[in-house]
């Protein structure tokens, strides 16, 4: 009898394994089939692909900046700050009012650069404040609670923030004012590139380099790495762990706030209290893709996700003959997340975390 039960159980084990293998093979075949079909059909020229890739990189750099917030926090606390997408929203939504004011007074036209820098500062400040308050009020009391408890708190915080900002600033979509110098395109070697995309990409890269410098070179950065390595030992070495954690949240908030402005410049429509949810989910995907807890990983993951999302519908789905492929842009990003978590949970660059800290 026991033998019968055991063999039955073993069968089930291998069933799941087999299913996963079939899934893996099936996905690979579908992706290849779709890509080859599209490429052979010659529907898109090289120029099309290049502009898609650059658009993807710009979008991806925004994901990367948000993803860094997930990754930094995860690296230290091993919790997913589910409300990070709302931190991103808070900054952008608040800065929108500054932008509207600048546009109405003509300040924006006279000093576009200064104006955008002020928006950035406002967004970063607001997002930082929200992130720090979140840590202080919601997460800190639960530092040693069972794992699901802070996650549920974070989910609650996410909806709480969405509806708080909806209540504060009203429902409905708002759009950032247009900035004259950023309109139009550059032509580089025959390929048209939109200026705003390049600017967003460059600014994001500058921020990421800054973050890397901060983490690698400053004393606070060193403390952050020490806390990520081992909280208790770090505390014994005289590092104020609470302070490092607050700093981490603050940095994540700052980057998310900046990302909010980039998003406002890049896609002027669609600032609303609910704008953070899907980008937050995608940025989390990016963080996982790069290996969560890993700073360069979040950057690479974000850029990769942006490009994948940009060319994926045209390259893969159209080749498979799926109508309305661009509607499924959000869906394929999430599908990517599912597959990464199933097949390579440690991500592209992450090698240690999944093993050690799971």
């Amino acid at each position, binding site marked *: 009898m026991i033998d019968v039960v055991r063999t039955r159980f073993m069968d089930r084990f291998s069933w*799941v394994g087999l299913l*996963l293998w079939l899934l893996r093979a099936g996905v690979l075949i579908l992706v290849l089939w779709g890509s080859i079909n599209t490429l052979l059909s010659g529907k898109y020229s090289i120029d099309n692909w290049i502009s898609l890739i650059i658009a993807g990189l710009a979008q991806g750099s925004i994901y990367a900046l948000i993803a860094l917030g997930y990754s930094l926090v995860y690296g230290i606390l091993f919790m997913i700050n589910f409300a990070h997408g709302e931190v991103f929203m808070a900054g952008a939504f608040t800065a929108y009012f500054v932008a509207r004011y600048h546009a109405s007074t003509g300040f924006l036209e006279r000093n576009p650069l200064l104006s955008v820098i002020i928006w950035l500062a406002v967004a970063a400040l607001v997002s930082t404040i929200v992130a720090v308050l979140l840590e202080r009020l919601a997460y800190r009391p639960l530092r040693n609670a069972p794992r699901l408890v802070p996650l549920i708190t974070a989910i*609650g915080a996410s909806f*709480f923030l969405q*509806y708080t900002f909806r209540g504060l600033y009203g429902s409905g979509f708002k759009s950032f004012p247009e900035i004259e110098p950023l309109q139009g395109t550059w032509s580089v070697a025959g390929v048209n590139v939109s200026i705003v995309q390049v600017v967003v990409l460059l600014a994001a890269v500058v921020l990421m380099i800054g973050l890397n410098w901060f983490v690698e070179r400053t004393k606070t950065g060193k403390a952050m790495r020490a806390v990520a390595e081992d909280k208790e030992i770090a505390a014994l070495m005289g590092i104020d762990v609470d302070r490092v954690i607050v700093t981490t949240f603050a940095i994540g908030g700052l980057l998310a706030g900046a990302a909010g402005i980039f998003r406002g410049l890049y896609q002027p429509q669609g600032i609303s209290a609910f704008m953070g949810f899907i980008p937050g989910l995608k940025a989390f995907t990016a963080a996982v893709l790069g290996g969560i807890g890993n700073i360069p990983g979040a950057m690479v993951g974000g850029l990769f996700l942006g490009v994948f999302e940009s060319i994926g519908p045209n390259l893969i789905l159209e080749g498979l003959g799926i109508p309305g492929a661009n*509607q499924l842009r959000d869906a394929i990003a999430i599908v990517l997340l599912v597959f990464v978590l199933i097949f390579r949970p440690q991500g592209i660059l992450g090698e240690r975390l999944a093993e050690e800290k799971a």
Partner: protein
Amino acid sequence: MNTGTKLGLKIGLYGGIIAVYVSVIGMIEAFAERDMIRGVVSLGHVLLFTIIVTTGYLAVRSLDQAINPAHVEDKKKISRGQALFTGLIAGLVVAAMIAILALIAEPLKVREVLVNVSPALLEVLTLGQGIPTGAVLLLVLSALLGATGGLIFVLPPIGRKAITSAFIWVVFLGMLSDLIRVTLSRPSIPSAIPRLLVTSNGLSVSGAVIVAVAAALLAIYGRTWQAKARAKIESLPLSGQKAVRYSGWGLVLLLLVFLPGIVGRFPSEVLVNIGFYVLMGFGINIVVGMAGMLDLGYVAFFAVGAYSMALLTTSDARLLGSIQMNFWTALPIVIVITGLAGLLVGAPVLKMRGDYLAIVTLGFGEIARFLALSDWFKPWLGGAQGIIKIPNITIGNFEFIGPQQLYYLFLVASLIVLFISYRVKSSRVGRAWVAMREDEDVAEAMGINTVYYKLLAFGMGAMIASVSGAIFAAKLGTIYPHSFNVFVSITALSLLIVGGMGSIPGVIVGAAVLVGLPELLREFSEFRFLLYGALLIIMMILKPEGFIPSERRARELHEEDRAQDAWLKQAVTPAANPGSSD
């Protein structure tokens, strides 16, 4: 500055922040539309005043804790005067912050950014008296209210209990006054009774007094009455005790059976909506509460249930291959399909840890919605327009059309699922789930096949949700992808957390409160998810086991406290166990 003043200022500041927050978010204004006691006080004012009184109370409590750190309940060291003073300061600070908001709102054009700082809000905040007089009035009133809060703290416990329970009942019944009026306005009841208690907008003054006195009396004497009744029941022979218990349940069942008839049509609609979530709550209770897998995409199963029911029964000619089955023949097929969907979602996420699992299931839920919306599946699922012409549920010639009929469907379905839940909970399967929730590795080491039990949990949870979804489709007659968004999952999760994870009565109470109340109060529904979010945070911090906790879950969550207590005892009496000095 003495401690009393300092704490009064500090706690008052926190209270003020909360008061300003609920004002600018629009809650006060929305609630002000409804009177709690007609012509005396609106719900908006009650909300504001409650914040002030609570602030005063908390200020005095923290003063008490500062003076009397051991916190012995009976030995308060603070005097009435101290309590009065600290409460007064706290109340003043709150009022000052609201007054500042009221003063700056017009000159600074705050409304251009914060849309809810409207003239109507300012009128509510200044008690309808305009800015200078209203602000002064507010300051005086808040000082008094804060002092009242402080005094409540120094009252003997029985008095405190009487006041709180009188207050809570008046607020609660004040909010439900519409429902009470509709219920009481019928020919069999002399019209003097509803006229005495309620008006078209809130309780009447006499009604409020009656409710307050009754609640206070109940709070004071309730315990002794209860004890007496219990003693009397316990003195009965065993068979008598059993008879009392069964007749109690019989009464509950009888009440449930006649409920839609008693409350009328609109409240029945609310009951039906509660029914959807009771069913889903039972399902998510299995996945999240018992097996401990945080599923945020639970709505996907609800959607699969609704869509497969719609597809099997619709007479919509736009869709390919409509089968036009009867609800009852389709139901088993729907359940099986959704169960398989549960396995399909469950299989890939088997090895994932709690937090990843949550995000991936959330992703699955969103994917399901995106696919239903897409052009790709439009020929089968109808795209954004959804599926129409889903027939009503019938048995013989009886049609379940209105909420009053559908209610019975939910009653029966809920009772069946309730029975299953109870039976599963303490069975081998239920215990395996609980073991997995507490520690997966240990559970596996003890010989529990975690793969099997995880899939079983997913499958069962999905099947229960599918019943809810199937009835949903049949009730509305039309379904769209937009009905199946993440908020459904969040509602289900919230009611589970508030009721208590793993607790079966918790699901019912959670659904009744979290789904029922916002439906009954139109003003409430706008802030529904704000409150759910806040509830999730507050519950996790203060009461993670929920209001009606399952015993085991509570033990799990407070394990550390108990360990600490044990350690404390050891530390206090070292002589008692000398062996544990290392």
